[in-house]
């Protein structure tokens, strides 16, 4: 199949090759799929640096009795190198909150074990340029936690003040059996 170039980069911009779309591969590849079988925290490790971006999809239910914060640590760093800014709505009011110099990023909320049975929170997390060592790592997270009558939804920004390539992600809150974490790698153009 012939290779075609669809666009010319402007001066000062590096452009990846652009391949004929008939030969292009899917943009998203699953890197790690984890189903929690015994309650505990989860670490996804050995993340390859070969993708452009990462997307992490979590279905979370914790062993806390009530709704609790969903958290994320990068590369096992437990220092106070994280911060978060959130938009939060609970069906009756909206707020914005900010947390600086914490030991985790706040990615949303997680439904607790005493709440509506068989119900999980969903968190979708985007990490762009996760292997770029010239920048700190900013993440964008969306959270949905609904228990038929109460619930919360959140859009949040998180920052890890470190330029290292991301090689592991830890959910440092104890998740119950049936919770799932799926990590996808997203490719750059060709």
């Amino acid at each position: 199949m012939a290779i075609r170039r669809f666009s010319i980069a402007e001066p000062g911009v590096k452009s990846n090759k652009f391949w004929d779309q008939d030969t292009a591969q899917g943009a998203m590849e699953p890197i790690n799929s984890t189903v929690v079988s015994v309650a505990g925290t989860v670490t996804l490790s050995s993340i390859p640096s070969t993708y452009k971006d990462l997307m992490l999809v979590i279905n979370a239910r914790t062993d806390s009795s009530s709704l609790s914060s969903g958290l994320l640590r990068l590369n096992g760093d437990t220092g106070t190198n994280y911060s978060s800014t959130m938009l939060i709505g609970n069906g009756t009011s909206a707020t914005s909150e900010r947390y600086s110099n914490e030991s985790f990023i706040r990615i949303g909320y997680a439904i607790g074990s005493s709440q509506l049975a068989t119900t999980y929170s969903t968190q979708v997390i985007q990490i762009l340029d996760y292997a770029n060592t010239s920048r700190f790592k900013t993440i964008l997270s969306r959270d949905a936690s609904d228990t038929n009558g109460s619930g919360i939804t959140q859009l949040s920004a998180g920052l890890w003040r470190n330029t290292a390539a991301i090689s592991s992600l830890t959910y440092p809150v104890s998740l119950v059996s049936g919770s799932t974490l799926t990590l996808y790698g997203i490719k750059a153009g060709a």
Partner: protein
Amino acid sequence: MPKGMLPIYTQTVTAAGGVASITFNNIPQTFTDLVIMPSFRATLNGGVVVTNANIIVNGDTTSTAYSITGFGGNGSSLYSERAATQNTLRLGFLVSSLGTANYFSTNTITVGDYTSTKVKPWVAETCTENNGTANWTGLYAGAFRLPNPITRIAFTSDAGNIAQNSTVTLYGIGKA
């Protein structure tokens, strides 16, 4: 018809002084939707730590082409804004030169039915995080209101150039 989500193009700013714009030309018309993931900062500030990205579609800067509605928060207060009959599509944030080095914004933008002759809807999730001050998170709706299919998308900054190490990737999504 391509299936699923495919990478179309990635551009990375390498010039030390940044570039005035990042442009995707000749966007193929064989997908149903587009997803764009910009992560960028600006070379100047205009007096603010977080500045706006402007998108120009098909090179069109007529004042009736674009509109936006959005809301967001900075950790202590909320806002919602609307702008009609704009000459650019103001979607997404950039960290300005007042932001600490190494801080870049994260944005995801989805464009529905981009080859149609209808008004094209855009949705953007955008954030900057600066550990203490000038952090913004927002969700925006936008519209390119002209009937032309989208073949070209350009990004510019409200404040100076788009800085070195900024990246933008364009993906196409095809039908199952």
